[in-house]
């Protein structure tokens, strides 16, 4: 009897979902294996961590209240009153940081492997947009506990947005939902974080993964090895090993370094000294601090912001700019540009935390 239920259930679903066709397609999927194929794992890890964020985020939604009179208290409650609330929240906060770090690694690894070259230009573009989206996730999520650090970090961050020429003031008001950080901001950031950004991310991730499915994995230019392993189940098992490792890391972090709550935000208190945004913004933040007040006749800060935007645009369009890679030729200029960018980001981030009185 039991032996019959299995196959008949399978046939029931197969007739309606075309499972056999899907499985046949899946069986054909292969992944190249060569010296550099280790880097292929990073995309999957990012997806895995995103899934963790969605799951823990959905659970936090159960107890969190996005109102300035209750936000901080609800997070406090999650940390101390809800069973395993400390775990769900700490996982969410730690994974957010790990995810953004790994996204940077994923981006740079695909850059150096020139995976962006034809025909994978759109994969790169959706990928970079996803990085920006996830940094927006980080920025909006950071405010939600409504503690002192996040309140002031949001103020500083939106002030920078407000200093953009022409659109600055309007942009700042739209982001804040008003003239300053307040209830409107909290509601708005909450909406960004649980509705707008997830929808956008889902669409972009969908496109990104679809492209990976249709185009397969890119091989480095000039890679001669033709060895391929099946995605199901070989590569997936290897993926899973990486995921297991990262789960252990997250567990250790959450138990020994649970995420702090911090004191509740008080707009009347003066800005604490040394206020910084989250680490993944610090390279830009420190750049703005180091730039001289005036360069030629232009305001240094505005010039720097403009430089960031131009740089970002160029980075986004790299697949179209790197003609040599499109022709499967080595393009050392772009490689070195990438190295320079990576070094710049690392050095400035480290400087933010090591150089006193910045």
């Amino acid at each position, binding site marked *: 009897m039991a032996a019959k239920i299995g196959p008949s259930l399978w046939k029931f679903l197969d007739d309606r979902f075309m499972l056999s066709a899907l499985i046949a397609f899946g069986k*054909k*999927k*292969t992944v*190249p294996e060569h010296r550099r194929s280790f880097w292929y794992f990073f995309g999957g890890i990012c997806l895995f961590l995103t899934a963790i964020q969605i799951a823990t985020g959905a659970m936090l939604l159960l107890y969190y209240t996005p109102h300035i009179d209750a936000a901080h208290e609800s997070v*406090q409650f999650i*940390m*101390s009153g809800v069973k395993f609330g*400390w*775990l769900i929240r700490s996982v969410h906060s730690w994974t957010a940081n790990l995810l953004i770090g790994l996204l940077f690694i994923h981006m740079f690894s695909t850059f150096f492997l020139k995976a962006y070259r034809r025909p994978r230009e759109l994969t790169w573009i959706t990928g970079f947009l996803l990085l920006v989206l996830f940094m927006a996730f980080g920025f909006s999520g950071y405010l939600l506990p409504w503690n002192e650090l996040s309140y002031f970090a949001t103020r500083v961050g939106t002030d920078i947005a407000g200093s953009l020429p022409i659109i600055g003031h309007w942009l700042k008001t739209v982001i804040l939902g008003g003239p300053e950080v307040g209830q409107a901001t909290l509601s708005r950031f909450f909406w960004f974080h649980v509705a707008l950004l997830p929808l956008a991310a889902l669409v972009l991730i969908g496109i990104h993964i679809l492209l990976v499915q249709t185009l*397969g994995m890119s091989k480095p230019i000039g890679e001669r090895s*033709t*060895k*391929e*392993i*099946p995605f199901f*189940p*070989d590569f997936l*098992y*290897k993926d*899973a*090993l990486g995921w*297991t*490792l990262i*789960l*252990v890391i997250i*567990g*250790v972090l959450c*138990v*020994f*370094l*649970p995420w702090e*709550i911090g004191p509740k935000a008080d707009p009347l208190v003066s800005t604490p000294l040394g206020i910084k945004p989250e680490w993944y913004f610090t390279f830009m933040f420190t750049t703005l601090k180091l730039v001289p007040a005036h360069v030629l006749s232009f305001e240094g800060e505005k010039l720097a912001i403009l430089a960031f935007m131009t740089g970002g645009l160029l980075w986004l369009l790299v697949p179209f700019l790197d003609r040599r890679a499109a022709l499967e030729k080595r393009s050392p200029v772009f490689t070195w540009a990438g190295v320079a960018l990576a070094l710049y980001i690392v050095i400035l981030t480290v400087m933010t935390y090591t150089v006193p009185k910045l």
Partner: protein
Amino acid sequence: MNIRAIRLFAAAALFAPLLAFGQKNSCIECHNKLDDELKAPAVGLAADIHAQAGLSCKDCHGGDPSQDDVDKAKDKSFKGSPKRKDIPQFCGGCHADAAAMRAFNPGLRTDQLSQYWTSRHGQLLKAGDTKAAVCTDCHGVHGIQTAKFPKSLTFPWNIPQTCGRCHADKATMEPYKLPTSQLEDYKASVHARALYDKKDLSAPVCNDCHGNHGAFPPSVSSVASVCRQCHPSTGDLFTKSPHKKAFDDMGAGECEVCHGNHKILPPSTAMIGTDQGATCVQCHDKGSTGFETAAEFRRELDGFESGFRTAEGLLTQAKRKGVEVSDVEFRLQDVNTLIVTARNLTHGLDRAEVAKAVTDGEKALVEVRAAGEKALDEAKFRRRGLAVTTALLALFGVALALKIRHMTRARGAGEGRGSHS
């Protein structure tokens, strides 16, 4: 009122503003061109509270500021700068005149001059000692600010320095045979800490205990009244205690005997008791009731405080291990208030009352300790949970590794082919 008067009045009213605008002040003009000591008044006047009230040089010194020629400016009404012994009277000309002061600030006191004459400074001055402090020594002269302004010489946290200019200077105080350690002592006190570190402007400075213009060292009998201004509950307890009569009979200054006067340190339980450093044994010998009471108080307070520290330690430990304990810390704050209350009660020397306060406090501590233990248990639970989960994940990882190795071998041996796509 005839038409001519109206016209005159209207003209005056219309032109009066112009007059103010064009008001010439030759005093300032001339003195600005001079150097150092003679330039200072002109420079300082701009920030002076008197200038802000619309007064100028001539209102105190007389003279005619419309005259450029110095001899004409220093006319018959010119009073010049007063001699030191005349300064109190000079300032008092307005400041002791209630009707005059009413025009500027009806809320200001006008008894400063009469108070001054009762002060040690005033008495010395009257006897002919011009080195005694006069108004300008504490308030400044051109550039006087109200005591509410933080840069003023009479703003609370500047007062110790203002008094200390003379009272902490050995050379100045030598002829009077007065000590000069008060400022140093005060700076080490709990009151100074409150004032300078916590910016608590309600903390007492020199004038709060010694009086302002009627400054005089408080007599032995009045020291306690001075302290009672801010510490009335302690004062009441002391008054009800047997110490009051004993100290009064001895002619001792109540609070001052145990706590000092300028160098009042933060009181601690170590002051009570029977060991060498304690205050009680300075009078009470072994075997006396006082000795026994002191020992009992010390024992109870020590027990209470060590219980508090243990509870605090538990919470700190739990917090370090990552457990949320702010709910419990709130209760601990409450217990801290109970400690302060218990310590205060010792002034009443009532064993029953102190014992009750300590018992109440220890009851509250039990709750805190229980919560602290619970928090530590939670920390242990988390670590165990992590160990179990990590072990399972490790097991799963090993299973995966085995499977991968198995598959790689199978594929390599079985097929011998490369790609599929």
